[in-house]
């Protein structure tokens, strides 16, 4: 690993914070997507269809 100088701690924490936040954001978006997909699948399994999706 390279030498980040006397302020290494700030650089590391900046990147760690950004990585954690971006990772959390990606997870939140994916979890939300999965939950909604499951909810939609459950509804369609009950036989509900949109008017525009003609059988």
């Amino acid at each position, binding site marked *: 690993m390279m030498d980040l100088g006397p302020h290494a701690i*700030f650089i590391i924490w900046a990147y760690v914070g950004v990585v954690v936040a971006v990772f959390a954001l990606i997870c939140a978006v994916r979890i939300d997507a999965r939950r909604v997909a499951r909810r939609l699948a459950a509804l*369609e399994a009950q036989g*509900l269809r949109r008017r525009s999706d003609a059988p």
Partner: protein
Amino acid sequence: MSIDSKSRQGWFSRIAHPGQFAAWTQPLLWPLVGITTVLFGVGLYFAFFNSPQDYQMGETVRIMYVHVPNAWLSQFVYVIMAVSALGTLVWRHPLADVSMKAAAPLGAVFTALALYTGALWGRPTWGTFWEWDGRMTSTLVLLLIYLGIIALWRAFDDQLRAARVIAVFTLVGAVNIPIIKFSVDWWSTLHQPASVFRAGGPTMPPSILIPLFLMFFAFTFLFLVLHLKAMHTEIRRRRAMGLERRAAGALA
């Protein structure tokens, strides 16, 4: 839903059907994820291993590579929201509602990150985590506005009605944010005659600009990917809510 290729409408009207929009953009998602990953990989490599330290700021210049893209996104996302708000108000474009709603939490996170990295950059360079200077203060106000808009989205039950009302408020914000920026600048120069910023500063050498540009595009593509994904989710959520309403109506 499959792509409707028989329609002879223009693309603008065709993507007005949310299902069609989702079908059209679904194949774009994974290539965009790939581009984003590559950009981050190359950008981080340049940021840490292939760029010199700044002669004034030393190694802390590396914080800039995450700070500047987030600061840019904090404003860019609001522009996206304001354009979508226009789409809602002028054309009543159904996708504009979805885009507006999906962008708000992303904008809030990027703005918070801009503040966080700014504070960590400020400590070694200015000697303080928080300085009430114009740029940091107006970014903070922008974050508050994002949070207000998110709170507003959560407060409404009827999402169609919410979209139009929030579009009005988003545009009020778009008019007001430059005024806030100006007033905050005026205020900070009044209260601290000696500016903490170097005026102008030397132009950046290419060795610093290359990682900056790479990270800039990496974060922008990250936003595009997440925005697209969140829009798809929102479209599906609306479809599910519509089905639930119809099911409830059939029971009644």
